[in-house]
């Protein structure tokens, strides 16, 4: 006979753990973070380009800038281009009226002349309007594969920062910080266990916390090693 599964469904009372500057942990990237924080209060360089492979926190920081701008009363937009590439570049229209425009994964438009041109014009309009444009990509501007030379050079006008990935200890620490934001206590031992058994990608690793949060709420259990093991099936 199949074992009867009884499960109390949890209410969604978990605290939100949005991407913010406060929960971005990376000492090596402090300079980039500081400049982005200035940008999100309508200050500092007009364009900032951050780059690095998936999992270093480009998306996190670009979203954090928008959250910060919002709490400072500034309008902003975060556009993940990988999700918008199938639409028309017309979405860039009128964005220069916003104090902060945040574009993520711009490598996806490299080689696409319509999008490249639209971004070139957006860049100029934002600059003229006195706004801030922050961009994220997997590679630096020069090796991104941008065909339009004027766009390539403009992307290098402002500040360009490579983001350095977290080392193992840093990832474990970041995991604990993110858990704390949710009001969860993740001991060193359990954090290391999650790190060792969880997905390699940092973004996916943080998603595990969401699963554990719901499961611990449902079962009213603390995040112990056996509990994590049973929930995640590791």
């Amino acid at each position, binding site marked *: 006979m199949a074992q009867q599964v009884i499960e109390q*469904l949890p209410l969604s009372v978990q605290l939100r753990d949005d991407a913010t500057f406060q929960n971005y942990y990376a000492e090596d990237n402090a300079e980039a973070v500081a400049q982005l924080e200035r940008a999100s209060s309508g200050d500092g360089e007009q364009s900032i380009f951050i780059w690095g492979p998936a999992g270093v926190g480009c998306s996190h920081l670009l979203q954090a800038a928008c959250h910060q701008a919002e709490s400072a009363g500034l309008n902003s937009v975060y556009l993940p281009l990988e999700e918008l590439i199938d639409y028309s570049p017309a979405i860039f229209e009128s964005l220069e009226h916003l104090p902060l425009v945040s574009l993520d994964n711009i490598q996806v438009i490299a080689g696409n002349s319509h999008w490249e041109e639209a971004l070139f014009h957006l860049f100029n309009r934002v600059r003229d309007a006195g706004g801030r444009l922050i961009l994220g990509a997997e590679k630096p501007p020069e090796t991104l594969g941008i065909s339009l030379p004027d766009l390539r050079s403009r992307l290098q006008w402002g500040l360009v920062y490579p983001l350095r990935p977290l080392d193992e200890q840093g990832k474990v620490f970041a995991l604990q910080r993110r858990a704390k934001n949710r*009001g969860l206590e993740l001991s060193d031992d359990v954090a290391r266990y999650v790190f060792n058994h969880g997905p390699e990608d940092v973004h996916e690793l943080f998603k595990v916390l969401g699963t554990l949060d719901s499961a611990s709420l*449902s079962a009213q259990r603390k995040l112990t090693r056996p509990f994590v093991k049973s929930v995640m099936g590791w």
Partner: protein
Amino acid sequence: MKFTITREALLKPLQLVAGVVERRQTMPILANVLLVVEGDQLSLTGTDHEVEMIGRAPLLEAGIDGEITVPAKKLMDICKSLPDQATIEMHQDEHRVLLQAGRSKFMLSTLPANEFPNIDDVEGQVTLSLQQGQLRRVIDRTAFAMAQQDVRYYLNGLLLEVKSDELRTVATDGHRLATCGVEVNLDIEGKNQVIVPRKAVLELAKLMTDPEESLTLVLSATHIRAQVGDYTFTSKLVDGKFPDYERVIPRNGNKTLIADRQALRQVFARTAILSNEKYRGVRLLIQDDVLQVVANNPEQEQAEESIGVDFQGEQLEIGFNVGYLQDVLSVLDGDDMKMTLADANSSAVMEEVEGGDALYVVMPMRL
């Protein structure tokens, strides 16, 4: 230090003050109650570092001023065991306190009063005056839904939200949520939210014994203080954010069930006997105007009972922890109860038929 007091005058404040004293302490002095004599007044203080209760009692005559601490539980047990109307005389004798009532004599150990920790003055950001009955009502109708020792510190307490026109409490343990709001008329600005720790909520409620009398609440960034008659109650607040409770209240319910509250309570009380002891799940089958409640346990035993209800909507089968439903039915007022449902995986809303001042959200179980 020396004073004379009736057993009754001492016992009541002593019990309330001893209520905050923990069974196990990190410091020996936390097991003690601080006694301070000033003229014909005795004040008693108990604390666990987080929650502090000060009570005052009139003496039979002016004593000899002084202060000392003695074991709280022992003093209370002695007081309780003395005959009614006994006159108690206490005086300090070097490092001991001698308690005498009639022919009974007790020597209690002491610790110096200057070692007794007290919570500093609370710098009030918001001060408000309420009727005890108002605070008592919003606590009584929600406190049962607070979490106990949840890893999320913010769930182990009660959200107290004060606006110029409303006093509201919210409690949730992640499975169910309770909220109750009463109308007030206060001269304050904006919305003030504090999370009062579980223990403090339960002790504070004990002070609200005269519904018509007023109390003063002082809220600061870190503490809550209540001034109620002869008592001053202070507690640290839970440092943290409380979940956005508005987000948790479902708006998509399209099925409503109205049932006789007491009759339904009894149906649940009977069927619960054969529910799984750990999960306490019961299955509700609602069709036309009949609600059938079924409980099973791992021993393959089964309880089943039907009750006539007023039901609007398509038939539904949904599981719940019966304890959560019973808790709500016991705090609701009115003859009938209204439950609004959507589907087997969505939370249900329980309230009084006319709405009332309280609202309960209960998440179902998968059975």
